[in-house]
């Protein structure tokens, strides 16, 4: 059977070109995320400025997201919080991805006892609820922003490790690696040569998809009061504060910051899913 790029008219062909749509999604999501980081950086000072004459105001043109009990602008606090979320998410995703790559490659290249240790480590880290693990770690590190970053960064690698290990084993098991080994290449050389090329796509996609989990976990810890220092604007802290004023009818304190977090998480998720579609098109067939 031959494949050819032809243009045919018919019912099944009236789809927009997926490649273009995917790239468009990735680009626009990246622009929005970048804009959030810039705006969040600019809003850091405004986020902490109190104004006792403007307390607990509902959304208006002056304060699109309203103000809180100290008269601080919720929009500025939300933007600053989102920036913090993105920073924590980036750090956590990068650290976790690095751990996952090292463990997965070690398991695939050395096999045997190393592989079993890696698998057992993955199982052990998935043995207790992720949130409980995070709480234990954050507690052990004494709480605060740095504790959350470390806790979130150190616990998101197991699932990615599992995926990458599977991929890496396929590469290592393939014929040409056996040939390379036969020609005298050492195990680390094989890892460097073949794995890097084959795993790159999966690592990038996996890292981007770790992001949303990391962001949501940071927000959850901060919401519980076990994370980011309450003085710093984080979405979790904002929502925890909003709880006390919810019964008084201050809906804007909860609705808008949470919605913004959802949108940012979904944007990053969109980038990841679309990138996955580029790496593995079977996952999006029709």
């Amino acid at each position: 059977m031959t494949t050819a790029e032809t243009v045919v008219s018919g019912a099944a062909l009236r789809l927009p070109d997926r490649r273009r749509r995917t790239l468009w999604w990735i680009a626009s999501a990246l622009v929005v995320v970048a804009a959030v980081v810039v705006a969040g950086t600019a809003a850091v000072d405004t986020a902490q400025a109190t104004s006792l004459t403007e307390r607990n105001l509902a959304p208006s043109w002056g304060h699109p997201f309203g103000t809180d009990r100290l008269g601080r602008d919720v929009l500025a606090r939300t933007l600053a919080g989102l920036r913090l979320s993105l920073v924590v998410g980036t750090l956590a995703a990068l650290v976790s991805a690095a751990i996952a790559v090292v463990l997965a490659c070690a398991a695939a290249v050395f096999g045997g006892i190393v592989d079993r240790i890696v698998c057992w480590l993955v199982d052990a880290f998935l043995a207790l609820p992720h949130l409980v693990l995070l709480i234990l770690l954050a507690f052990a590190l004494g709480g605060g922003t740095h504790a959350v970053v470390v806790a979130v960064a150190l616990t998101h690698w197991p699932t990615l490790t599992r995926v990458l290990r599977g991929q890496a084993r396929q590469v290592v098991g393939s014929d040409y690696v056996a040939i390379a080994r036969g020609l005298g290449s050492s195990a680390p050389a094989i890892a460097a040569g073949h794995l890097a090329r084959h795993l790159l796509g999966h690592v990038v996609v996996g890292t981007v998809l770790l992001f949303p989990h990391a962001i949501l976990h940071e927000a959850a810890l901060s919401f519980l009061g076990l994370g980011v220092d309450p003085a710093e604007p984080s979405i979790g802290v904002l929502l925890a504060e909003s709880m006390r004023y919810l019964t008084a009818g201050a809906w804007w304190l909860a609705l808008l910051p949470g919605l913004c977090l959802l949108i940012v998480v979904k944007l990053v998720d969109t980038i990841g899913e679309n990138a996955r579609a580029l790496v593995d098109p079977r996952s999006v067939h029709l």
Partner: protein
Amino acid sequence: MLTTVLASLLAEIARRILRLVLLLAAVAVASFVLMVNSPVDPISVYVGADIAAIGPQQRALIAERWGFNDPPLERFGAWLGNLLQGDLGYSLTFNQPVGEVIAQRFLTSLALMAVAWLLSGVIGFGLGLLAGVHRGRTLDRVVTWWAYTLASAPTFWVGLLLLYVFSVWLGWTPLCCAVPVGVVADEVDLLDRIHHLLLPAVTLSIVGVAPVVLHTRQAVVEAMESDFVAFARAQGESTSGLVLHRVLRNAAAPALLLQFSSWGELFGGSVLAEQVFSYPGLGAATTQAALAQDVPLLLGIALFTTVFVFVGNQLGDLVHAWVDPRVRRPRLTAGRGVRARALAEEAA
């Protein structure tokens, strides 16, 4: 024949119990190391707000009494020794033995988690089935988009919104807790309990639905593309017939496996939902223990939730084997002959 089956079954059970023991040992050691190295001062935690009124001598006495000055290994040995006798320690936050706290609190959480788990399982499976059967059409796109959006939503934010809409604005549901405030426990009837359970359970299930939908959809899509569905269609089976007779059972196995292996996520969600609704379950106790730096309770919860997640996974394996005959009835020694014959035929 029967004895070999029994022997392999017993060996399998022994293997799994050994696995659990190893996991528990790892969790116990790791958690203990974390707690010992925590910068939190155990004496000020023990004394609480009166710390300023305490002199160095009393500090030394307290440290002596609770063994805070012993080497970590010795303390771990003492803790482990008590643990093996079923003594998880004493929770200062609740003024109760840790075992009792966990047992009581877990029962309260269990109602919440069970309702949420069933709801998310049933709704998620149904929606995933719908989306998978109508793959690529508007219904599928809407359901999939919705599931992905929910997967990006923070549990506690969904809870806050529901709390605002139904409790504050509409006033249909209570604002907090598991039972009415100021009512003696004996006078609380089932209806009251359900009334208080409703919103937290819905919150927990809304967030838990997303992975079930996406997973089920994937399984349904795979089944719909399979050869056996093609053959059933060739026999004139309608779409609803395909779903009922072929797809349902094939998609149920992976969905059930996922639903049972999600007990960890379920507990994590209940920690957040219980915080939002001030629901006095084990999740809220976890938060309180961490905030009040109640180390024995935290260690107890770590061990307990490890067992909880493990039990979920084992039940998942059992149910999976029950639904999928390939797991339940793998070809044993007798079957090898069949397979050998099949291979011989293939080679001929």
